[in-house]
């Protein structure tokens, strides 16, 4: 069988696995965005305790491997609470990404010049209105490209969830590699799927970025 025949033959299995990978990653990133924004807000808070908690959280999460985090959540929690692989994987990915997203959001807000906040406050805009009309839109423009690359990393990192038995893309390629004795072919094919997802994602981010950067053209 040729590479192309394998590609066509495995398509139904890999497309189903793509659906699982996308659902898993999207769920994880949705949670990660909320958690990350929360941690970012804590890290910029005037309350010292909140800043320490945020710093500690980011330090621990960024300082340990994702695969260990997935295993701890899956095997650790299942002793007390049986978490299905999908949720163990999603939550581990979410927590992991939230630490990086928190740092991206924080640096985005810190990139907004203090003078613009002062200009907004000095015409009588409240703190909240200044956030909504000036700081958040400008922070978003700084955050978006970096967030885009974090999303791309998250898609590829989701392959580690294969090791707790989720039938997502990478797990599917492992199974097929074993059953067909064609590891090289299957790992090449699965790489193409990841590449396709990443390309589409990149395109979407670029388009959004383009729309938000009207002021620089």
């Amino acid at each position, binding site marked *: 069988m040729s590479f192309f025949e394998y590609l066509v033959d495995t398509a139904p299995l890999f497309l189903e696995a793509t659906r699982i990978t996308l659902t898993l990653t999207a769920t994880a990133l949705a949670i990660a965005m909320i958690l990350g924004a929360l941690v970012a807000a804590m890290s910029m808070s005037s309350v010292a305790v909140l800043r320490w908690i945020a710093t500690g959280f980011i330090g621990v999460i960024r300082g340990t491997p994702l695969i260990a985090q997935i295993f701890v959540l899956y095997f650790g929690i299942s002793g007390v609470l049986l978490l299905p692989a999908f949720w163990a994987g999603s939550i581990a990915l979410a927590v992991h990404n939230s630490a990086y997203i928190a740092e991206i959001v924080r640096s985005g807000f810190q990139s907004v010049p203090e003078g613009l906040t002062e200009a*907004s406050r000095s015409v009588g805009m409240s703190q909240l209105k200044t956030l909504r009309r000036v700081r958040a839109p400008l922070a978003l423009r700084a955050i978006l490209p970096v967030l885009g690359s974090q999303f791309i990393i998250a898609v590829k990192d989701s392959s580690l969830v294969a090791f707790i038995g989720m039938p997502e893309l990478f797990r599917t390629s492992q199974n097929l590699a074993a059953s067909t004795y064609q590891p090289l072919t299957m790992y090449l094919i699965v790489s193409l799927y990841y590449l396709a997802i990443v390309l589409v994602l990149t395109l979407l981010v670029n388009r959004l970025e383009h729309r938000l950067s009207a002021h620089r053209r």
Partner: protein
Amino acid sequence: MTTQEAAEKQSGHENEPLVEMRGIVKRFGDTVVLDGVDLVVHRGEVVVLIGPSGAGKSTLLRCINGLERIQEGTIHVVGEELVYKEKHLNHIRSRIGMVFQAFNLFPHMKVIDNITMAQQDVLNRPRKEARARAEELLERVGLTEKAQEYPDNLSGGQQQRVAIARSLAMDPEVMLFDEPTSALDPELVGEVLQVMRTLADEGMTMIVVSHEMRFARRAAHRVMLMADKGIVEEGPPEQVLEKPNSERGKAFLHELGDD
């Protein structure tokens, strides 16, 4: 200057005080920046603050609208005492215009939106009315054709004129200028000073931190020389800028002469 103009120039002093600062002490950590400063500015007056850098001119100006907090003393603006409560500060600030050295236009908004935002969000003016006011002010600063541009596409002088229009759109009682021409290329200073002079001639109450001695001579009713954490000399421009009484005043003038 005609005698009538001179009389008008003096008339400011007869009016009510718009800004009244008493015994202002400002510290950054352990460093005292302002040590018991008094400043009273009446309606229609143009006061120019001069002095060496680090003398606290900008800090004093920024205390007036609460961008800097004072440790001791009292500030009254338009009859109301300044207290550091969010709602009250927003209200007071909407009545005080401020123009910054770095322009600080909102880069993600078109020129016109820079000028309409606070009109709509703070004064609750309807969009149409806010736009009409913005267009009127853009015409006044000579930038009608730039309404749909983004600030980054404007020269420094144009940006500063938009910033002035943005402040004026709030119909402020008093305008604060914090070194409005210091970040500009020399050939762009004139257009900004021209707008400021017109504003002064129209009777706007202005407090200006500036190194532009020509502006001080031409437009100021009163010049204040700041040094050593306070005001060391004040009076009409011809006195402070030509025959100062204090040693600090003479020394400062001497340094300017060396330029």
